[in-house]
């Protein structure tokens, strides 16, 4: 139990540090910034109460916001993502695992299911993030570039993190 909590805290700090020190400085095409911190919400056990996702999403977003000088943007988008993630997780859970308690991963869910789950979750997060940040649909082209670019980059980082995690698990 303590180990689980410690590993959660470790992921929490790792993702924040990665975002704050590295990824926030990436602006591909001028807009696209990878935001793999949403990965933290993807690897929470499926038996948690839904409010935990919401609350953790908010706090993670809040800390990201503090470091990126975007008060409210990441917290609002990640909080909303936290509301949807359990629902998406339930959708992608294979029928034979519905009764079990598990931590979502490419191993427990299956590679494609986990990828789809991660893709949809991060799409929701990046879309909300950019809509809230730009706060207008006037520059819809740049909005679209930001959303799609960030989404793809985020997904690449999530795949990398996931492969790292599963490799660590195998050892």
């Amino acid at each position, binding site marked *: 139990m303590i180990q689980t909590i410690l590993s959660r805290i470790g992921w929490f700090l790792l993702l924040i540090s990665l975002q704050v020190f590295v990824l926030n400085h990436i602006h591909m095409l001028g807009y696209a910034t990878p935001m793999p911190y949403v990965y933290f919400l993807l690897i929470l056990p499926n038996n948690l109460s839904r409010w935990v996702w919401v609350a953790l999403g908010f706090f993670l977003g809040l800390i990201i916001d503090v470091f990126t000088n975007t*008060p409210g*943007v990441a917290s*609002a988008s990640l909080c909303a993502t*936290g*509301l949807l993630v359990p629902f998406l997780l339930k959708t992608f859970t294979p029928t034979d695992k519905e009764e079990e308690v598990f931590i979502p991963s490419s191993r427990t869910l299956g590679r494609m299911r986990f990828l789809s789950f991660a893709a949809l979750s991060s799409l929701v997060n990046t879309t909300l993030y950019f809509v809230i940040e730009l706060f207008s649909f006037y520059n819809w082209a740049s909005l679209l570039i930001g959303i799609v670019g960030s989404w793809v980059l985020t997904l690449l980082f999530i795949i990398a993190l996931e492969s790292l995690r599963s490799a660590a698990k195998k050892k």
Partner: protein
Amino acid sequence: MHNLLDFLRKYNYVFLFLLLEIASFVLLFRFNNFQGSVWFTSANAVVASINGVYGDVVAYLNLQTVNRDLTQRNIVLQQQVEQLRLALDRAGHDSTYTEQRIAEILSEYQMIPARVVSNTSRGTNNYLVIDQGEKQGVRPEMGVVGGGGVVGIVYLVEANHSLVIPVTNNKSSISCRVRGQNYHGFLQWDGGSFRRAHVDDVPRYAEAKVGEVIETSGYSSMFPPGIFVGRVRKVSNSPDGQSYRLEVSLGTDFSNIRDVSVIATPHKAELDSLYHRADLNMPAE
């Protein structure tokens, strides 16, 4: 009640979500200028449109008062414009040579500037009314001059207005001379053009020529000597054949006279006349 609590318990995450989203958006609008400005403008657009309708109604109901105020203001402003226009007229008027000369002669006299408010012409019995009277120091028998020269003599005085007998009245008789000569006659007018008068009783040996200047002689206490009256237009014989009659083109246009001055120092004029006559009688060696 139980159901409500169940409902709240079941959907606690939704309420938490709403709460945290509200917190996020408060942060968003509080600390981000752009999003904050969008929020405030869009939020205010609704308020502003309601306020606009309310303001329109109030403005409509107030129109009567506003209208009355505006009318009053308009009247005040019109009066102001008129006063300023008069002041401008007086200030911006180009002075002619005659005016300059008259001003020179009259510089030692106290002048009361006045304005012709009524210009009656009843055949040969014409009068002018000026807007200065007893309160301003105008007294009967004072001379009145204008930009073109002699105008007339104050006849009746009221508190704030005075009646002037102009040169173009057949009762008017002003002592005049030809400039440079001392022979004098009396300027008279017997109807006809407002721009012409005549000087009778000029001795035959006076050498008056057409175009010479007729000015006041100083033989009366009303005008100091040397004020322009007009120019000789024609020299002819008097009806009695004993003397010349000089027809004079008057310097003052009596059909279009506005600004005049009353010579308000009769004693000075009297003294000047005395000195003048003394000089004539005792010519310098």
